[in-house]
């Protein structure tokens, strides 16, 4: 092995792995072990139930949609914050973190108050036949809210470090503003956008507090998987809850690995000369 300047590789790696094992892996193993209690048959039965499937579909579908929305608008907000100087920029910048700090239940109540059929916005939307609270759009709205800061905060430092030279080079080579953005800037941001996407997605899949207030939790329609788990716990069906949890865990893990692969591929140009 090559000699290192700072000693303690073995020691620090050992501690890091032990810590990761205790904090992250051990609870997951316990979850899988608990889930195994219902057996293969029980698992299949659980997964084939239409209510479970609908909840999983809403949880993952909604989270993916919310993450896509967050990537688009997060890019816009990060761009504005990094590129333009305007009065109130710092305040605007601080507001971005609010969804991080707010207890999620508070966010859920606030959103519900706004979008419920008798709320400020809700009663206007009702005129046009649009229902947000107590329906899937409400779920997605809450997921967008809690995932928003991730995209902005991952993008900001990268946008700041982008070289203006590169844009000027593109322009002098004859590229229009749109071509400069789509052919030069955006491709360089893709790996970072994927990181933001993954974080926003993970947050949205795991979100419970704010969603249950606005979702209305109508089975088959606006019920998310985490809520189903809580319901099972309330019915003392611990193995069922653990099994559903394991399914969510595996699906999330698969999604995150897929994103990591995409990210690696989109950032292949960043490999340094060895």
């Amino acid at each position: 092995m090559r000699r290192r300047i700072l000693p303690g590789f073995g020691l620090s790696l050992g501690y890091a792995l032990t810590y990761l094992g205790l904090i992250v892996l051990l609870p997951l193993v316990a979850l899988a072990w608990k889930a195994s209690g219902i057996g293969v048959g029980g698992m299949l039965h659980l997964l084939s139930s239409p209510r479970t499937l609908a909840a999983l579909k809403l949880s993952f579908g909604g989270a993916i949609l919310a993450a896509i929305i967050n990537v688009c608008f997060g890019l816009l907000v990060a761009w504005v914050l990094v590129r333009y100087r305007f009065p109130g920029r710092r305040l605007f910048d601080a507001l971005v973190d609010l969804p991080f700090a707010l207890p999620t239940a508070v966010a859920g109540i606030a959103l519900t108050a706004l979008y419920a059929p008798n709320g400020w916005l809700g009663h206007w939307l009702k005129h046009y036949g649009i229902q947000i609270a107590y329906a899937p759009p409400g779920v997605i709205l809450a997921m967008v809210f809690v995932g928003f800061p991730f995209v902005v905060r991952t993008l900001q430092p990268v946008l700041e470090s982008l070289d203006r030279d590169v844009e000027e080079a593109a322009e002098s080579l004859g590229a229009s503003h749109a071509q400069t953005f789509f052919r030069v800037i955006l491709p360089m941001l893709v790996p970072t956008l994927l990181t933001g996407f993954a974080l926003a997605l993970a947050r949205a899949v795991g979100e419970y507090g704010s969603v249950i207030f606005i979702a209305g939790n109508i089975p088959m329609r606006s019920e998310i998987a985490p809520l189903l788990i809580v319901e099972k716990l309330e019915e003392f069906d611990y193995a069922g809850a653990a099994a559903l949890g394991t399914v969510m865990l595996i699906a999330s893990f698969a999604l995150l690995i897929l994103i990591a692969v995409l990210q690696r591929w989109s950032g292949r140009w960043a490999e340094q000369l060895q």
Partner: protein
Amino acid sequence: MTLELSHLSRRFTDYPALDDVSLVIAPGEFLALLGPSGSGKTTLLRILAGLDYPDAGTVQLDGDDFLAAQAHKRKVGLVFQHYALFRHLTVAENVAFGLRVRSRKARPSRAQIAERVQQLLKRVQLDDHGHRYPSQLSGGQRQRVALARALAVEPDLLLLDEPFGALDAQVRVTLRRWLRELHEDLQLTTVFVTHDQEEALELADRIAVMNRGRIEQVGSPEVIYRQPATPFVCEFIGKVNKIPLTYANQRLSAGEWVLEGHPWNGRHANVVAYVRPEHLSLGGTDTQPGWTARLRHVYLAGSVAHLELYVPSIDQTLEADVAGEDVARLGLQSGAELRVAPRNAIVFTLSEQAGETSAEGRWVWQA
């Protein structure tokens, strides 16, 4: 195509970056904008590229208003100090960029683009690096890719902003020679910005020396070096000894060195002579004009030796250059006493106004 810059001014919030700059750039010329940082040379280049606009003044291309065209319509090739390559594209894609972004009508076919890219990569000696990413190349290679990319769009004007600034000394010299050859091949009007006088002297057909947003002198490297027009050019280009002169009995002098027949009447408080190190003669006899000096150090730098001489009568240390082989012949050793006399000098009378010194009179003195 002749570019005519007239009375360009550009002010940034706290200082004038360009102050009434006029310059004519001839077709096929290799022009260097030389000056210290903050002298306005990069601002001038950016105005030509369309990345900045002057507050006043015009730029005309064969009589047409050049400033009216936006950057992406100017047919200008631009090369940056830090390469500014598209790091997510391969070398070949970088070079092809300018052709690929053209509108469908003006865009060459895929095969034509590929052929042109291959041609250019060959030209910059990177024909087997087309599939690599910029991060896999060395600095010199990256700068050549940047150059190929700029040339791909067949520009009318090539602009280089400190193109060798980020490179090692050795790579810099090689690339410099190569760029000169390329220019001789292509005969493309080229303007490059540098703060390195050696680079400007070696590369350019003409040099515009800039200082504080103004052009101090424009001329061939030969003229700039041998006949500097202002004190700034004297000090900025090459090495020079600055010797303050005193005025007494209608004569200018510094110690035993007396300059006869100056063109000025009356008294001048502030007169300075500039003498190049190679214009100091060593080893004359006591009867000849000049100073007695003590040799402090001999720095032998290959073919040339730099001598550090202390002259007690003017209380100043001068630098003289002699051929390396003369060091032994003249028996030059630290501590030795010898006679030193300037062969020629450029003399300026200076006036100070509002904290800024400027030259009033200029006189070329010869022994």
